[in-house]
């Protein structure tokens, strides 16, 4: 069974934010009012972390897409009191919305701050509701949610493969963010497959994983920027 993982090449990433928008739409992540977002209640399964250092004009600004890194040894699933978040059969960290009691312990335990909480009920206007993605369930207030690597796409891909009577191929399944990226900065695939693009990339000298020292074994790799030699 493939071990799905992602490699994000920060040297290619332009920080355009297409992944952020794509993720939000694909997964029916709720929008919050201006007032709520002022109070830090904005919801993103994938967001850009921006670090700026230095002074004008040499200001160095690093933009890093931040999403669930799908730990193989997740600190969040350990602490869940009701088994509402767990390491699924696809080795993806999953959430069970109807079971979550909203204690937010998993959020406190996540070293990557990628889990988001529904502080209030989503307010979809009738029109907006009609264009929501039917493959992704809506979340009510009071539960925790997060990036699923677009798990619903994996499900569909499996079904298609089955209908086609062939094994699931790596190319069958891509999360929305990877697919949309206009700079091809994100690569997705099977980390266990010796020859898959991801496993080739992750062997690069530039590859690193966030908070690696914590032993969480993330499945999302970042390729550091190569600074030009002039």
């Amino acid at each position, binding site marked *: 069974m493939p071990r799905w993982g992602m490699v994000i090449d920060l040297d290619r990433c332009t920080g355009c934010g297409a992944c952020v928008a794509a993720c*939000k739409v694909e997964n029916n992540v709720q929008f919050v009012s201006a007032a709520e977002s002022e109070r830090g209640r904005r919801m993103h399964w994938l967001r850009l972390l921006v670090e700026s250092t230095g002074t*004008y004009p040499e200001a160095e600004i690093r933009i890093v897409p931040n999403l669930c890194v799908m730990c193989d040894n997740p600190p969040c699933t350990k602490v869940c009191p009701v088994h509402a978040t767990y390491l699924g059969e696809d080795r993806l960290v999953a959430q069970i919305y109807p079971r979550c009691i909203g204690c937010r312990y998993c959020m406190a335990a996540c070293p990557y701050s990628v889990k988001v909480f529904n502080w209030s009920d989503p307010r979809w206007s009738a029109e907006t509701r009609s*264009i929501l993605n039917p493959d992704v369930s809506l979340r009510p207030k009071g539960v925790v949610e997060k990036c699923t690597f677009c798990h619903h796409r994996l499900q569909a891909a499996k079904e298609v493969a089955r*209908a086609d009577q062939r094994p699931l191929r790596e190319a069958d399944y891509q999360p929305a963010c990877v697919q*949309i990226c206009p700079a091809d900065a994100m690569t997705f695939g099977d980390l266990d497959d010796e020859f898959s693009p991801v496993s080739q990339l992750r062997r690069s000298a530039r590859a690193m994983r966030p908070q690696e020292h914590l032993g969480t074994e993330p499945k999302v790799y970042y390729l550091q920027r190569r600074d030009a030699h002039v």
Partner: protein
Amino acid sequence: MNTISRRHFIEVLAGAGVAVASGGWATDRLLAMVEEGTLRSPRLPGVQRWVPSLCRLCPAGCGIRVRLVDGLPVGLEGNRSDPVSAGGLCPAGLAGLQELVHPDRVRTPLRRDGPRGSGKWSVISWDEGLEEVAISLRILRSQGRPEAFGVLERGDSELTRRWLQRVMRAFGSPNLITASGPSSWRAAWAYAADRSLPPVADLANSDFILSFGHELFETDGHPVWQSKSWGRMRAPTAPPGVSVAYVGPRVSPSAIRADLRVAVRPGTEAALALGLVGILIMEDRVDRTFVDRWTTGFYSREEPRGPDRQGFESFVRRRYSPEDVSRITGASLDEIFRLARVLGSSQRPVAIVGRAPLSGEDGMATAMAIIALNLTLGAVGRPGGYVAASTPPLDFPEPVVPDAIARRGLSALRVDRPDPPPLSAVGQCPARLAANLLSGKPYRLEVLLIHGVNPVHAWPGAKAFEDALATVPLVVAVGPVVDETARWADLVFPEASFLETWQLLPPALGLPFEYVGVQQPAVEPLYESRSFEDMWFALARRVGEPVAGAVPSGTFAEWLPSAAAGLFHSGRGTIASGVNELRVADFMQTRGWRAPGPKTSEAFWEALRGAGSWLGGPPAERSPAQLLGASERGRFEFWPPRFERDASKQSGSSIPAAALYEGRSGRADGNGRAGAFAHAGDYPLRLLLFDTNTLWEGRTALTPLMLELSGFREDIAWDSWVEIHPETAHRNRISDGDRVRVESPAGALLVRARIAPIVPPDAVAMPRGLGHKHFGRFANGVGVNPLALLPATVDPWTGSAILGVQVRLASVRV
């Protein structure tokens, strides 16, 4: 409860997936399942379909696929088989569906009740509305003054523009005013190469892109195509090295990713470009072969026309020594040299320029300087340099022959023509429209049709434009919502979204290869909305002969295939079918090979619809010769004599040749340009306007998605902000997140402060696109509109608005 098990549901979905993916055996099975499903229960589980189309939220027009489940649009993604966007999209692209179902869309034609701008409307039928317009148009013709009919249009789709032109010609009005960016670039090329259509930069094939304020990854050019090209440049396998350099005052998102970044004072890009030329000359990096063969005016020897009868070479060396340039631009000497050397040592460098520098006080000079730099580098008429913009072989009816009335009308001056007239190479001066209408010179308009532009919000001098509209007896607005401009109209027609309508789209921004995208409806038009083209046809028919004869009998959609037939008969190109096939196309083209395609034009049309785009391969014209129009000496001009003549004519006295590169306001001194810094005393800060790829110029700012992502890099949502340098902030006792007053001679705004070292200490920057008053429930009252700070000043040379002003900050104590 429907009786279909989840298992079954999945099969249907899967079947659909396969049907689309492989089109294989599963299709019939799928249909069978749907059949029995239908029989069983009215509420069917999703059967999905993908419709390839184009995103039209910005002029770029990326290829998209709309996902339909049971005929309802529920998703949208990039179309991989589109050779330009290759499956990529910018964030704005994701907002398409939300715009489609926006609750405040105009649903029926509306007629104004009560005074203008009152926002009171009564519902009318299309017939009533169109008839009302047609009547006044007929009257205009019968009165023999058809020129009193004006159309103000965004003009980012070629075919629509041509139909507008054709009908306007038949009707007899010269006043088709298309508002697409600053005209300086176009004009400068017209002088330098004597060519109406400016060439485009072949970025994908150049190894070093020098960007003068050109926001590669944001809103300039074709952001997605540029990002894709960048992605290829930076492929992990590609060797590291300098591939992009950015020159500009603001550390923009594109600047961040550039390998080299040179900060210059606002409006001094031209000086830097000339300085670079100077160093290239000093270090003998000039592409002599090109310059000798293809240009004139470079050396002092050949009949020089430069200042004091000098060649461009010595002009630059004398006036733009590295020290001078460093002083003018504020860039350090070794920055400049570093840049020049990378430039000189690259194989296929190219210099491009963004809208911001071209919209400054001396857009013309900036454009000229950057063209000159490209000429010096020989970056014209070669791969990876400037090549001819594509004009795909779409069939279009022969131009109509205007009748007597029309001829008289056409001979009239354009209503937007400034006085004194602008440079002859400049066609459009939309920025002048308001002033002219108010002054009544050259004459007033009786009927004004506005489509796709929102001047009251997006142009400087909103108030003036409102007053100008008041002088027009009949104002008709066509659009998806009643925006700030439409609010002042007498009639509003509901325009269908791009997901509901047809279009064949050659890239509006020009791409270095022939390409046509197919925009086709994913859903039937909601409510009573229609495509703008159909409305136009209907209107023309109602006006009666000879105008009616100018349009086809059917709908726009019915006519399109015949336009596409041109592509088929041209015998060139292929129907796009996969990512990255540009190289393949190039390879085949150069060998005169060609992939087997459909046999009949009908089959061709069907195949084209299925794939979503047609790729004509690399530009036909790639040699300098083919880029030159009917030029006097068949060379690119460093000192275009026509430019000099026009400029002198325009200013009434002969102007120094140097002005071609230094602008009317003369050479910049250490403090920047005189014009720009008139108020430097009480308004010490330069206001830089920029666009974000979520808001564009406000075009997309009506959807919740874009509004929430308005400042996603700044951790700001549903709001605008003003970027302030830490020192400046400290001096004004402003801390991050404060509300500050930004004041200019023209107005003042209250806005959130964003303190970051990404703007120079003597400038502040604000995003355009927010601060709407009437743009749907989501956008209203969100953020502020920086254009309110701008006086409506027009560049007399180009007739376009100058987007620059000096401001000051006042911190607000709460």
